[in-house]
């Protein structure tokens, strides 16, 4: 009871701070900017926050963090829009949304897809904040038990999601994943400091950014493909999508029934992935998609406009944002690029995140937590009416729309490192996407492999080095062994039960 009373007091302080007119105003600005940042390909919340940092000098830290928190959550909301409407995810964590979201748009159900994404994001964000508030100390202990062996096992488990992404042909899915693994090895190796596959190009030393891969394969690739095929076939895939604006924006009764469990599952998966530093939003969205496909009675619908395929991953990537605040606030460990910038922001204000922050700076921590609830509500209010406006995008003639997409993609990728080399890389990847499409290779496994490959490799090597080269470390540690067992089960189940014809 005492603990509950304490929580109540803290929340009262927090909401007092979050609802102060100035802070509320900053929250509104944060979510609006965040939504814009999420919609633009390439521009992420980490960059936006670091750009805003100098402007927030001299204002109250509570206000600054309310602005940043709103921006972070807002960017997670906005990421789904371009995925669903034009199949052009701006971040790796929205790739899964593009698969079924875009098919729904083709069937005139783009509005419903955006609605399930927005409501799912609201639910996920709210529950994630609730879990952050009540369970942070416990979750921190769980996160710390994850050593290299456990991370490796988790990544192996995540790789099994591949089978679900292969859309019929496992061989093609594997080929696509191998391309991704190859891209993932480019750059300086963390363990030895040696350059791999850089061909003497300084621009490749840092590796290929996942955002560059995502934007290159999906957005730029789609534009190139359209340009290459339009002359010959008027009814290209992107062409089909046009003119399907008329569908209802509201969710039907069936949509609600199918979305609910997906939102809940996505929230839980996303939150826990977010808590683990390094796993993050992308792994969360892949696992959530896979979970939905496995839970569904009609897995054949996946990849062809299943609403769960949008609801689950969208809930997951939003919940992971809340989850990643757990190690940040409770330990001072950033679990994502955005939280790394937020950590720097804390330090600029002379604050050290960590267990002491919760007791020493009650107004700040609880103000931030309360503002996350407020941001979520604001985002729902902002985004539901916006859906009607977003779907109007589909009325824009394809050549104009795609020209704009190419311009924004170029600009967004350039701003990542202010490096023109990255723009070249994104065009090369766009061409690669055309070649892959020509031979029927799916693109999502490539992105999954680019994210998972480096984690898989580095954690494997760390675990082996710590164990003195003894490979049994993966099966003698209980958590690692359990995860590997789950991976084996997950990988063998669809092979045994495969009934769908290939192709």
């Amino acid at each position, binding site marked *: 009871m005492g603990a509950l009373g304490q929580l109540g007091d803290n929340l009262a302080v927090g909401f007092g701070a979050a609802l102060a007119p100035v802070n509320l105003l900053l929250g509104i600005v944060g979510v609006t900017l965040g939504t814009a940042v999420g919609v633009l390909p390439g521009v992420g919340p980490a960059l936006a926050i670091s750009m805003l940092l100098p*402007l927030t*000098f001299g204002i*109250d830290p509570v206000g600054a963090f309310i602005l940043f928190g709103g921006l972070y959550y807002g960017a997670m909301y906005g990421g789904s829009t371009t995925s669903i409407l034009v199949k052009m995810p701006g971040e790796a964590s929205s790739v899964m949304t593009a698969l079924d979201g875009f098919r729904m748009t083709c069937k005139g159900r783009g509005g419903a897809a955006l609605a399930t994404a927005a409501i799912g994001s609201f639910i996920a964000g709210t529950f994630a904040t609730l879990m952050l508030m009540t369970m942070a100390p416990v979750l921190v202990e769980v996160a710390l038990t994850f050593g290299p062996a456990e991370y490796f096992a988790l990544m192996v488990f995540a790789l099994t999601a591949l089978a679900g992404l292969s859309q019929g042909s496992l061989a093609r899915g594997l080929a696509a994943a191998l391309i991704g693994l190859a891209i993932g090895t480019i750059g300086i190796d963390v363990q030895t400091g040696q350059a791999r596959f850089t061909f003497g190009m300084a621009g490749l030393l840092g590796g290929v950014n996942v955002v560059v891969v995502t934007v290159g394969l999906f957005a730029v690739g789609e534009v190139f493909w359209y340009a290459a095929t339009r002359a010959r076939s008027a009814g290209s895939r992107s062409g089909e999508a046009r003119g399907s604006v008329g569908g209802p924006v509201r969710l039907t009764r069936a949509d609600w029934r199918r979305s609910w469990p997906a939102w809940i599952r996505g929230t839980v998966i996303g939150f826990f992935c977010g808590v683990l530093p390094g796993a993050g939003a992308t792994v969360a969205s892949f696992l959530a998609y896979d979970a939905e496909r496995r839970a569904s009675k009609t897995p054949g619908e996946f990849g062809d406009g299943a609403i769960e395929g949008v609801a689950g991953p969208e809930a997951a990537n939003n919940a992971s944002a809340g989850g990643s605040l757990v190690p940040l606030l409770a330990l001072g*460990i950033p679990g994502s690029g955005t939280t790394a910038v937020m950590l720097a922001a804390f*330090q600029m204000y002379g604050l050290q995140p960590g267990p002491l922050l919760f007791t020493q700076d009650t107004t700040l921590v609880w103000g931030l937590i309360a503002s996350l609830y407020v941001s979520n509500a604001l985002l729902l209010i902002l985004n539901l009416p916006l859906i009607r406006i977003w779907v109007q995008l589909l009325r824009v003639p394809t050549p104009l729309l795609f020209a704009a997409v190419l311009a924004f993609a170029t600009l967004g990728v350039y701003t990542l490192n202010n490096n023109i080399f990255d723009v070249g890389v994104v065009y090369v990847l766009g061409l690669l996407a055309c070649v892959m499409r020509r031979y029927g290779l799916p693109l999502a496994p490539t992105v999954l492999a680019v994210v998972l490959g480096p984690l898989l490799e580095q954690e494997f090597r760390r675990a082996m080095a710590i164990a003195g080269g003894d490979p049994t470390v993966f099966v003698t540690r209980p958590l690692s062994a359990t995860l590997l067992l789950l991976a084996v089960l997950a990988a063998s189940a669809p092979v045994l039960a495969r009934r769908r014809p290939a192709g």
Partner: protein
Amino acid sequence: MISPNLRAACLAIAIAATGCAGGPQGERPETALPPTAAGYPQGAVTLIAPANPGGGWDQTARQIQQVWTETGILGVPVEVVNRGGAGGTIGLADLVTRYDGDPRNLMVFGQVMLGSIRTNASPVSIDQTVPLARLLNEYEVVTVPADSPYRTIEELLEDFRRDPAAVSWAGGSAGGIDHILAGLIAQAAGVDPRRVNYIAYSGGGEAAAAVMGGHVTLGLSGVGEWKAYIASGRMRPIAVSSPERTGDGVTPTLRESGLDVVLSNWRGISAPPGTDDETREWLIRALEGMRESEAWQRILRANEWEDSFLPGAAFEAFLQNEVATVDETLRAIGLIR
């Protein structure tokens, strides 16, 4: 005086109105240095942080920006751009090639970059730039998990000498300052540095998690960076790499523990090649003005950074010395030939 609330409200409205970042373009403040005879600096000065947002160089660049902006020493706006990748050598290459002769672009860098230049076989090197000043020292701390049996570094090194492979050292990326410290400690302890079982993480935060979770034997990072983790009681400091005790005043130095190792993760600032002497002097004066400000001293204290201001030619001589030391250590570790 403008109240923080009013400033916040103005900020919110300004961001909402413009939708992007853009500093206020006011009159030249009275505290500003008069421009050079050649008129430098006409227009904004850009600080290149050769790293992604969030790291030490980014943080240093933004702190300099903050103090220069608040005190108005330059009389022009100050911007920070991140040019991350390849241990900072991408940013260095930009400074040397793209901004050759344009001293309105400056670069923040530090000890770690000297290592990256060698391990990345960078085509450009630091002696092509015009060094302005060393600004600060950050010393390293050696920690063990809270439940570790080791109380002192001597105890730990005893086991290390017996079986080097059984002791795992967590720190930042290979060839960085943490790795170099591991190599120097091994050398001082009489063990071949190549036998250090070094577990590289891409950041101090990840390495800290490995230490706090008890997955490695010991961890290495900056004193300021790990201050909060140590305060939380999840890891214990057993040595610092400074010449004298710092911070808590309790943790012994490596020297006190019988190891002749002092290592500082210093940070400094350089101008592009082709910067004329007059401009260089002007920039050094601007840095001196920053150093003397209360705001800068406060930042140093908050981060447990040591004021190690060393301007111009003296910094250049120091750099040459450092390059040689880093080279030698990397060779001993076996990272370069």
